[in-house]
């Protein structure tokens, strides 16, 4: 662990929360995508968080080990006015739940804030350590 370990750990948490904010933003931005029924729909993206560290020791933070893509089957809707509609007048739209995405966004935001709070606490402690002997 480096000299100012807590700061690195909180930084990794901030990065992970940011990645989560990005995926929710991407999911909401794509919720009105329309594709033809012979193509797959936009799959909801979710970051995969993995703890860093060795068992039996204080962990070293978190990392985003990948982005999981959800079901690309989507929902088939009847929309004959769409330019990509098939012969039956159907199109494929992604199965993005706006409510769930908004909840995830707030969660990611809260995580971000918690990590910045712990960053600030660690900074205060390290600053006081620098006064030793002065």
């Amino acid at each position, binding site marked *: *662990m480096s000299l100012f*370990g*807590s700061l690195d*750990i*909180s930084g*990794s*948490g901030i990065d*992970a929360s940011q990645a*989560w904010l990005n995926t929710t933003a991407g999911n909401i931005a794509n919720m009105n995508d329309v594709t033809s029924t012979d193509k797959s729909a936009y799959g909801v993206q979710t970051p995969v*968080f*993995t*703890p860093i*560290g060795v068992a*039996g*020791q*204080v*962990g*070293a*933070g*978190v990392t985003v080990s990948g982005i999981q893509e959800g079901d690309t089957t989507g929902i088939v809707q009847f929309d004959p006015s769409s330019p990509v509609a098939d012969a039956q007048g159907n199109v494929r739209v992604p199965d993005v739940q706006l409510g769930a995405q908004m909840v995830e966004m707030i*969660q*990611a935001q*809260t*995580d971000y804030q*918690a*990590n910045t*709070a*712990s*960053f600030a*606490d*660690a900074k*205060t*402690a390290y600053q*006081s*350590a620098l*006064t*030793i*002997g*002065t």
Partner: protein
Amino acid sequence: MDGIVNVLQYAVDGVAQQQQATANNLANVDTPGYTAQAVDFETSLQQALSSPSGGTASVAVTADPTARASDGNNVDTGTQLVDAQKETLQYQTMVDMLNAQFRLISGATGGSFS
């Protein structure tokens, strides 16, 4: 005098590790299946100090027994944020005490007490 400085130094390191564990728990607040960590140095330090023959203090990393949520994660954000504040104040207090000890040494050796 030397003993107090050593004990304080050990305690400062211990609290720094507790702070790292808290930071790590908060970083993993939404990692599925993550078990919160706790660091205990106080128990063994107290034992070492109260034992007449002395002893060696050690730092133990333990799993937090808090109940798990549906995703298998047991980090309680509120508790961890309170811990982070508490550890920062403890850290500052012990640094102040270390500085007080050094001022005493400085004064006793002909320097300034302030």
